[in-house]
């Protein structure tokens, strides 16, 4: 057992170097102010108050959350029936369908987004709708695969038992299949909502240049304004929101499991 633990050292080192250390740096930058070219370590919360007191920034945050939420909801609405359909196919067809589904994921996300740009260019649509289409397209496979895995794991005997006890197909779905696939939906939400809320390439390319999300703001403050302190504060606020929503989904997962 002990020797197995030792094997995790490289992994721990990796985490410390590339996850923990950067997070600490972001935290440090976020709570300090920069002097003339050098960082003076004077503690401040003004980076946070600057963000939270500015209606423009708050609106950007709200838009980001809204579009991520909408993307997630639509991914579930489209993804659940699709997953159900696939799970009811014969075994070999299922493998093929999942392969077809993952196929576009092998293509670079940037290329796919550029392709959408070309397609959507011909339509007069609100930029928010264009961004939304691109996001749903990009994240849908994650949702379908998670839900499909949950449904495929389901014990068929339970369905047979439900029919035996007189439940019709609809009732069986509501009382058996749906509750048992909740863990799949929840890991789907984690995989869709979290990247969606911080995505910035899709809004940049599909939003036609007048659609700013929180990821774009962070990019601007780091790369254009050179204001790493403020950029870090925004990143930290984002991180807190993400950790908060992860906590919530975990809780949902647990209460669903208890039922």
């Amino acid at each position, binding site marked *: 057992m002990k020797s197995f633990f030792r094997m995790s050292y490289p992994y721990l080192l990796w985490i410390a170097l590339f996850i923990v250390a950067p997070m600490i740096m972001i935290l440090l930058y976020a709570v300090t102010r920069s002097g003339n070219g050098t960082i003076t370590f004077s503690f401040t919360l003004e980076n946070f108050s600057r963000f939270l007191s500015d209606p*423009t*920034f708050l*609106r950007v945050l709200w838009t980001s959350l809204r579009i991520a939420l909408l993307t997630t909801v639509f991914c579930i609405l489209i993804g659940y029936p699709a997953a159900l359909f696939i799970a009811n196919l014969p075994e070999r067809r299922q493998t093929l369908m999942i392969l077809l589904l993952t196929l576009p994921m092998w293509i670079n996300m940037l290329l796919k987004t550029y392709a959408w740009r070309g397609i959507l260019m011909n339509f007069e649509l609100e930029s928010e709708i264009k961004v939304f289409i691109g996001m749903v397209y990009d994240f849908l496979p994650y949702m379908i695969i998670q839900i499909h895995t949950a449904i495929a794991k389901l014990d068929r005997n339970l369905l047979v038992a439900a029919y035996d006890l007189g439940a019709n197909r609809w009732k069986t779905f509501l009382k058996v299949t749906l509750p048992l696939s909740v863990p799949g939906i929840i890991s789907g939400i984690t995989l869709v909502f979290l990247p969606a809320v911080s995505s910035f390439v899709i809004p940049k390319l599909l939003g036609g*240049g007048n659609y700013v999300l929180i990821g774009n703001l962070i990019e*601007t*403050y780091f*790369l254009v*304004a*050179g*204001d790493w302190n403020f950029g870090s504060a925004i990143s930290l606020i984002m991180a807190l929101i993400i950790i908060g929503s992860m906590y919530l989904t975990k809780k949902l997962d647990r209460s669903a499991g208890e039922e």
Partner: protein
Amino acid sequence: MKKTLLVMLALCLALLPAMGLTEGFDPKEFEGTTLNVYNWGEYVDMDVIRSFEKEYGVRVNYKTYESNEYLWLQMQSGDAWDVIVPSDYMIERLIAANMLQPLDKSIVTNLDQLAEGVRNQGYDPDNTYSVPYFWQTMGIVYDTTKIPEEEMEAQGWEAYQNASYAGHAYFYDSSRDAFMIAEKTLGYSANTTDEAQINEAYEWLRKMNATLQPSYVTDEVIDSMAEGLKWMAVVYSGDAAYILGENEDMAYCVPHQGTNIAVDAMVIPANAKNPKLANVFIKYMLDYDASKANSIEVGYASANAQVLAELSGPGGEYEGNAAYVPRAGYEKDEVYVDLPADWQARQPDLWAKVMAE
């Protein structure tokens, strides 16, 4: 053995005249070395780079960036390149920060080929550190089937407050240029640091954003305007020259309120690893052949006087193209000077808010 000696002797003989002709360096001394070049995106004819590699037996590691500010941030984190191509005001900042090294004028012997409009500019009065590469003005490319020429020329930058173009405009996503446009329209200097004037410019930009709902773009504006997707766009003259060449409905207006004249010039960072070859490269790029190939490929105005005259003259690649040669000698036009440190962060901050509204 004898054969090898003979070959070597022949080689030496062949090299002699070459060594006699070139001053300051031996063309064979760089063989096998690498030159790190960091330039703007879509800003070179790659064949020129390849022939430089062949001629000196070197490898050019060619990378590109999108903004002066990004380049500056990377320089600050200690990245080392041999040749970079920042704009005027960034060169000024780099010189002030002791981050550049002077050119070796015994190698860069062709400075007399520089065009009048780019020689000895304020940011580097004797071209001690920099050799201009391309230069440009900022202006408006517009679709003459949608906006008549007289109408656009009369408005200039005011077109960006005209509600009848709502939804049909591109705007360049660059805080420095955005503030220049607002300040010029209001009759101020593009280099102002006056609080009241900058606030007024900020309000002008906010109003523009509210009235026109422009799309904020960078390089993608080139293809979009060549396809005629919108009525007007803020672009650099070099990109305009390309757009005009692709789409005959397009025209270029250099606003009467004045604009920015920008020079992008080749410099050698202080921490360059191969500075001697960097000097050779700079000379090579300014020479007639490379300058001509690059200017034809990219559409920006060459810093080489002969190339500039030839390409815009009769039979030249850009004959009759109103955007190719930048407007020179107009008193309201300005070259950027480097803003004080607090403004360097303040402008992008205000600009981010304009776009986010």
